[in-house]
């Protein structure tokens, strides 16, 4: 096989992912539903929703991450004050413009007050549709937060099961966990490859591949990543003299693709990030042998990643970040938060203090999902990369 052949394979896979990314009207979901009678789709907002339960109930879990820079906000702005982030505006715009009509229900996982209020708006805007505010526990004791979460999982299973007519049995849930574990393995392999050879996996391609998982059925998404992983090492890509950076803060409202491209062009290889975090909120495989509900509960309470919307009982977020920087051999950190994102921005002083103490260079800036001008960020990322390359340890 030639380099050109492998590159064209990669291009085709990325084009497929890009088409899904640009599908802000969820036509792909509409097509999927049209292939068989009684198919249902459940939309979920950032960050984490137990997709295994939705899948086991026979529905397609669909990630709703806002309209990015592809959607003009006409009515969404009238629902929120000017000091509220951009994502809920575009989600409301999607709802009132009929783009979310194909969804049969919605999950609003707890992140912040804005998302909580958004769930209330949806109950009023889309009266009659299943809308559930998923109150993720902030207590991680199996007997307390764990039990509470178990009740939430069963409530979702019952509600979605009632829509699809499929009862979530232990056997079905086991099957779904197994499929999502395969997906976790594929995403882990993708992350590892990028960490080891970031020039093989440009951030935009990596991002598009992750995003595709929010629309595709899980087995198709796993296959997409696996095909990419097979082709990309032979696509003839060569390393550039870039620095390695870790990104934190982009776990909810997503950065526009052009921003990711800008960072890479400014000389930064992104070797770790929190984009599309729900797809790897529990990075390792869930237990496939015991009680599947316990596997999901333990996965969330014990093995989920540290992020701003999750209570840090032991107060180790800063230390965890420093350890991760060392583990992934990042030269510096970009604290990149959406404008007006309270969880991300309130976490920043804690993270900055830990990075400062550890002597790890960092810089911070804000974006919104529809940011169109990147000159200032380009300068900031460019000078950051230069400072590390010329005067730092890289």
């Amino acid at each position: 096989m030639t380099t050109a052949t492998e590159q064209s394979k990669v291009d085709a896979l990325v084009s497929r992912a890009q088409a899904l990314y640009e599908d802000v009207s969820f036509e792909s979901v509409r097509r999927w539903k049209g292939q068989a009678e009684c198919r249902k789709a459940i939309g979920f907002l950032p960050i984490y929703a137990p997709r295994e339960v939705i899948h086991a109930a026979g529905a397609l879990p669909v990630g709703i991450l806002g309209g990015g820079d592809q959607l003009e906000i006409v009515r969404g702005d009238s629902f929120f004050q000017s000091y509220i982030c951009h994502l809920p505006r575009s989600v409301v715009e999607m709802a009132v413009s009929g783009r979310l009509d194909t969804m049969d229900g919605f999950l609003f996982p707890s992140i912040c007050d804005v998302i909580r209020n958004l769930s209330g708006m949806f109950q009023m805007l889309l009266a009659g549709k299943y809308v559930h505010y998923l109150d993720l526990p902030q207590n991680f004791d199996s007997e307390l937060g764990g039990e509470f979460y178990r009740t939430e999982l069963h409530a979702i299973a019952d509600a979605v099961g009632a829509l699809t007519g499929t009862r979530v049995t232990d056997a079905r849930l086991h099957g779904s966990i197994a499929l999502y574990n395969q997906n976790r393995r594929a995403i882990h392999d993708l992350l590892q490859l990028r960490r080891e050879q970031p020039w093989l996996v440009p951030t935009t391609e990596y991002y598009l591949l992750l995003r595709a998982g929010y629309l595709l059925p899980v087995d198709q998404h796993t296959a997409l990543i696996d095909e990419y992983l097979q082709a990309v090492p032979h696509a003839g890509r060569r390393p550039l003299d870039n620095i390695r950076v870790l990104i934190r803060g982009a776990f909810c409202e997503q950065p526009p693709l052009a921003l990711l491209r800008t960072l890479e062009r400014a000389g930064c290889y992104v070797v770790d990030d929190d984009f599309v975090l729900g797809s790897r909120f529990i990075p390792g495989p869930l237990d496939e042998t015991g009680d599947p509900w316990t596997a999901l509960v333990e996965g969330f309470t014990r093995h989920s990643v540290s992020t701003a919307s999750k209570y840090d009982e032991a107060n180790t977020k800063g230390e965890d970040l420093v350890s991760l920087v060392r583990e992934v051999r990042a030269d510096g950190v970009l604290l990149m938060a959406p404008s007006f994102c309270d969880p991300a921005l309130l976490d920043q002083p804690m993270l900055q203090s830990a990075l400062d103490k550890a002597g790890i260079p960092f810089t911070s800036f804000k974006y919104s999902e529809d940011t169109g001008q990147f000159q200032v960020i380009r300068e900031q990322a460019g000078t950051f990369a230069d400072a590390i390359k010329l005067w730092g340890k890289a």
Partner: protein
Amino acid sequence: MTLTAGIDVGTGAVKVAIMQDDRLLAQYLERIRRRDVMEVVEESFDASLRQSGLRRDQLDYIGTTGEGDQVPWRTGHFYGMTTHARGALYLEPEARGAVDIGALHTRAMRFDANGRVLQYQMTSQCASGSGQFLENIARYLGVSIEEIGSLSLKGDDPEKCSSICAVLAETDVINMVSRGINTPNILRGIHNSMALRVTGLIRAIKVEGLLLMTGGLASDAGLVAAIEEKLKDGAANLTVRSHELSVHAGAIGAALWGAYRHQKLAGRKENHAGA
């Protein structure tokens, strides 16, 4: 021996420098003139290689700057501020500041004896006080770019014009022409308004000693004179100078930083091998 190339892709022109350690082997400039930028980069790069008698595969590092982050065969990219500071230091080792006036942006930077940028200021997105603006004015006046500097020096009664907005300044110039103001005085007025903007940036970075003008407009004698004139008030410790290779400062800086990176990375490989 380290062989490097620096490619500075500007808005108006592509500049290439080929260096052997700190010796400049070749420099080349090609204006873009509405052509495909990457084609101009390829042509300029090949021409500079021919001048230096080198092949592409002999180069240890190809450093880009400006819009050069689009060049797929680069080794690494450096930000314009970093490369202009290093290029200015190469051309004038005593310089501790530079002001780069290109086709679309103007930026002033203060740096130390190692070329490390300590402070900088740059214009926003308005094209006023930039090369493209001056080119437009030259076109209205029917003079060539090369004539601008010498004509401006002949102006003895410069007209005032807007220093804030290129569109307003262009309107001012059209009015001046219709009022019969002669070309030298129009150009000197334009240079004065540009100098006002540039000296604002220079003062903000608090540079002392020698400041080198870089970028395409460094060769505009009228603009250099206007800047010197404006700096007479309150900047007694500052000398402004231009260099015949000023336009190549970015490319030279990219080549020099490329050599530095090549050595740093090679040193790290040796350390790993020795460990």
